[in-house]
């Protein structure tokens, strides 16, 4: 792997950047570096944010100087051949999605814009294994890459005031899942009942480097792992029906 560039991002962070095309290989290398930094016991590191082709390292300048920090990071850069130790294990997660209808209000727009059937859009969205490049925007929101060029579509020109938690969207060649309800501009094609983030027990379903497979659920009641809250979301609180 080529050597990265270092640049200060204020006096509390350094951005480590690779001037390379974005690939799962590069991202995996960045994730490896993140884990090595976490294990490497460099004093003064306060947080680490991996992204497509960068790693942002936050530090306490009262503990470590910038020049020493980048020296230490350089020392921990993984060497491709020698370093294939599995220091972390990534997983593949299947996400059941109900596509279209009221849960995927932009699905028909995408089909029309791309001149294909709704079924083909769904098939294409489900047809790839996605790689978690980054988590951000909202707690637990995964940036997944990349969707088939043929269903790539820009963000909505009028972002929604509220996108419900579990909504699955497309923005350019990225696809993602709203982990909590939030305003947002991604084109929404479906919804999953799976919770990506449980604040009460500090749990995040996905980490950078994981893989995601979307599975269409044709029938609302075939959502797996429906909890009472999701049931309520789907059917209203129709107790006694």
């Amino acid at each position, binding site marked *: 792997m080529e050597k990265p560039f270092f640049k*200060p991002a204020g006096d509390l962070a350094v*951005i480590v950047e690779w001037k390379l095309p974005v690939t799962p290989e590069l991202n995996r290398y960045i994730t490896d570096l993140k884990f090595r930094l976490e294990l490497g016991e460099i004093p003064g590191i306060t947080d680490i944010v991996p992204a497509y082709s960068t790693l942002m390292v936050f530090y306490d300048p009262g503990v470590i100087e910038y020049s020493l920090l980048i020296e230490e990071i350089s020392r921990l850069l993984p060497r491709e051949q020698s370093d294939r130790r599995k220091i972390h294990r990534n997983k593949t997660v299947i996400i059941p999605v109900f596509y279209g209808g009221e849960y995927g209000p932009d699905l028909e727009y995408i089909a029309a814009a791309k001149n294909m059937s709704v079924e083909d859009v769904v098939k294409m969205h489900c047809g790839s294994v996605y790689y978690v490049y980054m988590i951000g925007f909202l707690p637990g929101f995964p940036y997944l890459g990349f969707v088939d060029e043929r269903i790539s579509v820009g963000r909505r020109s009028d972002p929604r005031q509220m996108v419900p938690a579990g909504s699955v969207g497309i923005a350019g060649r990225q696809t993602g899942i709203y982990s909590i309800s939030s305003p947002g501009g991604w084109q929404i094609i479906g919804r999953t009942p799976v919770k990506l983030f449980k604040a009460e027990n500090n749990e995040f379903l996905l980490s950078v480097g994981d893989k995601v497979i979307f599975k269409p659920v044709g029938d609302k009641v075939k959502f797996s792992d429906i909890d009472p809250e999701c049931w309520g979301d789907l059917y209203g609180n129709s107790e006694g029906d």
Partner: protein
Amino acid sequence: MICMGTVKVIDGGALTTIQDLGRFGYQSYGVPQSGAMDSFAFSLGNIALGNPENTPGLECTVSGPVLEMQSDEILCITGGDMGATVNGDPCPMWRTVHVKKGSVLSFQGLKSGCRTYICFRGGIRCPFVLGSASTFLKASMGGLDGRELRSGDFLFIEGGPAGYKEVAVPHAVRAGIVNSPEIRVLMGPQDDLFSAGAVATFLGSQYQVGVQADRMGYRLSGPAVKCGDTLSVFSQGTPLGGIQIDGEGVPIVLLRDRQTVGGYPVIATVISVDVDLFAQLKPGDMVRFAPVSLQEAATLYKERLRVKNEFREATRCVWGE
């Protein structure tokens, strides 16, 4: 004996939240750092009280709350001046005060700054979420059920007052809160995407804090900063104090509740000691930016650490700890 005090919220004020110094280690999961917007003022309040710096306290925004003490409390008010009163009499800031059971703490109105901190001796009892008591409103996380204080809420204060000690934060220590300050920045990390003319516009102009100014960030109005190539930045981590330039050329200063990743180019980043000063600005205030080197920023940071440590040592003697 450990006892617990109670404070009743009569009125929550415009936006009063429980904060500490922030949530660290979860930005890779999309969880922002949060924490007190003016961390220096917040820390000084806790240090004056003999608390650990990170003890949960209240951050009040623009207009303060009305709080009824249901037990004796020792507290310290710092940050912006909102005209604090106890039972209608002026209550001094930047020093410890002993407030008797039954007293009501309220605020007359904003005189300077924008955020006031109320720290209690012992601190507010509060569950920690991902290692922090800080409230992050967008995800309803931390603090009091992830939300702002409301009328009818109760706060529980750890460890009642065993004995009042008088501690004042010396003038030389506390941050000056001034309107229209010059805010120091370190250029970058994406300043290379801007022309020399655009950088000159950014550094040579005065900007006004717009109405969209909250814990996530402040939009500024003023001369547009043209970026040749706004599309080439892949989303990446966002620094505290980062000044991103959106597609329209509008500068947006990213603060404690900012999204952990962003795709707009960051022309410059407010240095850490000035982020606290900046966070005391309110809509309508004017600001200009002045570049400094990383070396200067680091020196200023260390100087602040030294001042804090000296004050902590001094208060430790007073509290006898």
